[in-house]
């Protein structure tokens, strides 16, 4: 096929499309920065928003920042395979809601905190670890480590290590213990109970 001048716009178009596909999806830094930015916004407006306002503001960002399917598989470990598809979906959904609820409940006031990134390190496989710090007004810092992995077109968080305590390990041990001692329906019931308690602290 001969190349004519009228093909040129077509080339440009293809090139443009390709360039767009090649533009990097959200980088790991952006994912964490966006989450931190939302947390600060939630804290700054905590009273005005109330719990449900904070939950609504956080939900889309949390949903889009964590790999809840992968986290659920790790957290339930060997128990994951024993669940049927519906149970797995139910667990992922409740776990996702609990994660947002925990943030909405915990980040309920602001006294000058800020986040800053300290370092970025390669992790096992394609994963990455971002070391960040929550800086309090008096200069005290609390380390927050994030482990992210690439998932199709974006990077997603699969673990948060706050002040040396890995959320994934903690939940894996705890959920495993409940699964072993009480079974899946009890685990779900307990997770629902936690969400209700976060919504309505007087219930505790």
């Amino acid at each position, binding site marked *: 096929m001969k190349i004519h001048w009228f093909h040129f716009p077509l080339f440009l178009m293809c090139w443009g499309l390709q360039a767009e596909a090649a533009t990097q999806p959200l980088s790991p830094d952006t994912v964490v920065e966006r989450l931190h930015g939302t947390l600060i916004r939630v804290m700054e407006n905590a009273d005005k928003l109330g719990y449900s306002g904070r939950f609504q503001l956080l939900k889309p960002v949390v949903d889009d920042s964590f790999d809840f399917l992968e986290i659920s598989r*790790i957290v339930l470990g*060997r128990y994951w395979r024993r669940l049927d598809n519906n149970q797995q979906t139910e667990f992922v959904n409740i776990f996702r809601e609990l994660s947002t609820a925990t943030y909405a409940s915990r980040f309920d006031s602001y006294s000058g905190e800020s986040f800053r990134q300290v370092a970025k390190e390669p*992790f096992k496989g394609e994963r990455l670890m971002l070391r960040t710090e929550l800086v309090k007004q008096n200069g005290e810092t609390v380390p927050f480590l994030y482990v992210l992995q690439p998932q199709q077109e974006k990077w997603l968080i699969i673990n948060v290590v706050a002040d040396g305590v890995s959320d994934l390990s903690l939940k894996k041990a705890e*959920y495993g*213990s*409940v699964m072993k001692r009480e079974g899946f329906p009890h685990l779900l019931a307990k997770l629902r109970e936690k969400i209700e308690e976060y919504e309505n602290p007087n219930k505790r």
Partner: protein
Amino acid sequence: MSNQQRGVFVFKAIALGVLLMFGSGCATTGSDPEKDPVEPMNRGFFNVNENLDKYLMKPVAQGYQKITPKPVRSSVTNFFDNLFYPNVILNDFLQAKFKQGFRDFARLFVNTTIGIGGLFDPATPAGLLRHQEDLGQTFATWGMGQGPYLVIPLLGPSTARDVTDLAPRTFLSPLFYIESAAIYGVGALNVINERANLLEATEIRDEAALDSYTFTREAFLQRRKDLIYDGNPPAEEFEDFFEEGTDADLVE
């Protein structure tokens, strides 16, 4: 209790720790039976401690927090930190952290003198930061396994390796050498103040935990690991749970 009786008690506790540590083949991390081989006994003591806390320690600590102004509580915390600081210095040197050891010695000196017996902490703003070192961490850096997780009646979470710290902590504290009955009051103040400092942490735990026992154990063991690496554990330390998360390991 006389000094001698107290000494015998501490030695017994350490002997128990060492025995359990070697008896278990120095198990480190892994599945629960390895990490927590005496879980039924631990859960028993955990429940006793929790009840004691719920009906006695926590209410007392809350009352203390309510009636004592924050600066006074800070001074009480500073005072006891300073009193037990010789143990930190000893373990700095045992871990061959010589520079940190000399800085910690300077910290103890500054806080004991300018800080009026440790009530104030002028060392921190002067750049002599507080460190947390103990014999359990020293043994860890020497390559010793942590041994089984232990819940000690009254004292709470520990491991066979960490129990050993009771000895230097006790013998290196000036409190041990005071014969007066006032020592009980001072000791009680330390316990109440420490419990008050933990009120926020236990509040978060009670809010988040599905199973308090497991939550406490995991958080404790991870915090210890973090301290052993001085707050900077290598990435591999966070990778163990991925092994079971992969397809190959999901089938039991």
